[in-house]
């Protein structure tokens, strides 16, 4: 079990170097230096960009300053996805550090949601957490928790405190005896398509444990036929024969969802290998 804990820890500690650059169009005078920062994969952008926003806001026209939003190669960043998912989807094809452009103007209302404060992120996180528990335990566990437990999980995530977060999260991940999870909470992302979410039991009717392969064949059978797709969870390719229940327990993001990213192997990458 110490090995599993090591895996949990290393997933929690996963960080990506990000380079924030102010959008060229919005600079009014002196061009600011780009800011580099290591951001945890498991957290959300609004929780880490406060300092950057404050710094870069000095260089723009105050009158035109709107809500800050991020952009990667012309695609607006959806802040409500965990950063790791976003990177695996949008940035993994490029080189590190991940380059993001910071905007303060022309907020794309029709593509991303507004995020005016941390409370919005918190309510989003908690609702996802509840959804996951509804799938796993029909909300029994999360509803049994106290308000301060919820708060502790949230502050643990905010301050990147593994020891604060996991003792509570452990209760959500537990399954007593034969009572397995009702369904595996998962979401499958493909490039810019909406994510796929379906009901999938951890065990087949015959009692066999489902593997990742079974899930993917159930959820996205057409993608499994081609071989130029890469399946990423937390930035790594997980062996397809890994049992799904274990993955759900260990490889889920803090919101208890298994976020699976499927990307096409870009020509750029393959040429690099070649």
């Amino acid at each position, binding site marked *: 079990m110490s090995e599993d804990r090591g895996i949990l820890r290393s997933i929690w500690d996963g960080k990506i170097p990000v380079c924030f650059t102010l959008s060229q169009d919005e600079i009014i005078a002196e061009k600011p230096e780009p800011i580099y920062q*290591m951001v945890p994969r498991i957290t959300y952008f609004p929780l880490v960009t406060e300092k950057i926003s404050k710094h870069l806001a000095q260089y723009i026209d105050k009158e035109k300053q709107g809500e800050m939003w991020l952009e990667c190669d012309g695609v607006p960043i959806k802040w409500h996805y965990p950063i790791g998912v976003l990177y695996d989807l949008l940035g993994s094809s490029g080189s590190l550090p991940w380059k993001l452009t910071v905007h303060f103007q022309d907020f794309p209302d029709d593509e991303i949601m507004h995020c005016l404060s941390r409370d919005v992120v918190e309510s989003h996180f908690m609702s996802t957490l509840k959804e996951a528990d509804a799938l796993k335990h029909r909300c029994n566990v999360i509803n049994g928790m106290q308000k301060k437990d919820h708060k502790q999980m949230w502050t643990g995530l905010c301050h990147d405190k593994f020891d604060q977060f996991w003792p509570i999260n452990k209760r959500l991940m537990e399954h007593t005896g034969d009572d397995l999870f009702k369904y595996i909470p998962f979401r499958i992302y493909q490039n810019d398509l909406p994510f796929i979410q379906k009901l999938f039991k951890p065990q087949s009717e015959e009692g066999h444990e489902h593997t990742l392969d079974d899930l993917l064949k159930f959820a996205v059978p057409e993608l499994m036929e081609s071989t130029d797709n890469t399946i990423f969870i937390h930035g790594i390719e*997980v062996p397809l024969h890994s049992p799904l229940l274990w993955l759900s327990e260990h490889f889920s993001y803090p919101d208890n969802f298994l976020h699976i990213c499927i990307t096409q192997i870009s020509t750029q990458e393959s040429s690099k290998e070649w």
Partner: protein
Amino acid sequence: MMDTIPGMDWKKLISQRLKTRYKREYSDFIDLIDTQNNLFEQVASLKARNVQLTYETEKLKSENLSLQVRVDSGSESSGGGGSNERVKQLEQKVYRLQEELTELHKRRGENAQQIIDLSNAMKEKEKELQTKDGKLMDALALENSLKAEIKHLESTVFELEATNQTLKDEHQALQMAFTALEEKYRKVQEDNSELMARWLDLKLKEADKMNQENDRFFKQKQESLKRDLAEAAKEHKDIIPQEENSVLLKGVTPICLSATLPTKAQCKVDAHDGEVNAILWSPTGSLFATGGSDRKVKLWDYNGGMCNSRGTLLGSNAGITALEFDPHEELLLGASNDYASRLWSVRDQRLRHTLTGHSGKVLSAKFLGDATKVVSGSHDRTLKIWDLHSKACSKTIFAGSSCNDLVTLHGTSIISGHFDKRVRFWDPRADNTVNEIGLHGRITSLDISPDKASLLACTREDTLKVIDLRMNQVIHTLCADSFKVAFDWSRAVYSPDGSYAMAGSLDGTLYIWNIQKEKVERTLKEHTHSILDCSWHPSGSVILSSEKQKKIVLWADM
């Protein structure tokens, strides 16, 4: 790098790959990024330091400048021998003061700005105040007007109250008057009922009296009858010689060959209360009738110079204006002021018919031909012909003027004398006048001569006219100096032989003219009041005249 190594434990594979990821994404960059962050922070701090230092330099520079200035001034004032420390102190002071000055300047500027702002604000406030003042003025004006209105309304209310009070008072007064009147009314009613009772009482008494009167009358009659019978039985033998001498034969119309003019008033009787409008001998001359304004018609017996009342004919509701016997002396026709004509039976003295239909007083009524038709002339300017069988009006002639008298001729034509000074001739079968003659005065009476050839008309111009009926023109005019026609219904008559005309005057004198000679043959003066009517006895020797005051006079020479 597909998962193609089946023997390899998936967990180990995962941790291996996580390590690879750690290396790729984290350890390769963490130092670099840390360093960058450190550098970034250092740059920031150095920038801040730089700014601070620049400021300090500036400060020192200015300090230096001020010191130099002070050194210069100090060397001038104290010969430059002042202690350096003091100079420095002073310089510092100067510097401080200068700073203070600049500070003050700045403050002054701010103050000035503030003043400007304040003055602007004040101006605004003043403006506001002005608008407020204006509003206040408006409000005051409004208030004044409202006050005035209130005052006006109050006065109106006061007036209305006063009016109300007066109306109330009036109402009270009227109420009081009403109660008083009611009281009065009640009293009057009481009086009325009392009077009614009295009246009934009197009526009863009157009826009793009447009965007594009737009884008395009946007794009288009985007595007279007895007397007559006794007389008749007594004078049985003297009938024949008496018969030869007497001009008065019962039931025979006497024939007058020549009229003799009486000279004496043989008898004077009070016939009626008030005017005696009509007096007429019966065709046989055995009795005569009088009609007065006391509503009564009286029958009188003429018996050898004595006038005895034979009976009273009642029934008229107003004064009698004219009388007429039928040729057989059975009926007496009387015209009355109560718009009606009446027929009495002479024998039993009963009222037979009442002919109503005129809308004015009836001034004359005559039999037309035999005793089945009657013609009457009225003040309502019509003549009516009545049929006595049906007792109804059979014809109405619109004469156009009030008819004062009328006569009938040959039983077929009617001659009427009118208020408009005309004599009109009518044929009852035709509607229009057959002829008419205009005279100079209102016609008061008409009479036909015994030979039916001429007409005697009495007019208000105090003359009598004799009109020839065949030529329809006046052939004689009779007048006298003191002869004055008294009334519109004064009558003039022919003597039975047709040679004399007689009429009464205003002063009570009876005038008799010789028609042929057109001069007064005799005047008879016995009446003291105006004569209304006169009648010549069929035998031609006795005359009756009636006057305004109760009396009738019988003139005879026996």
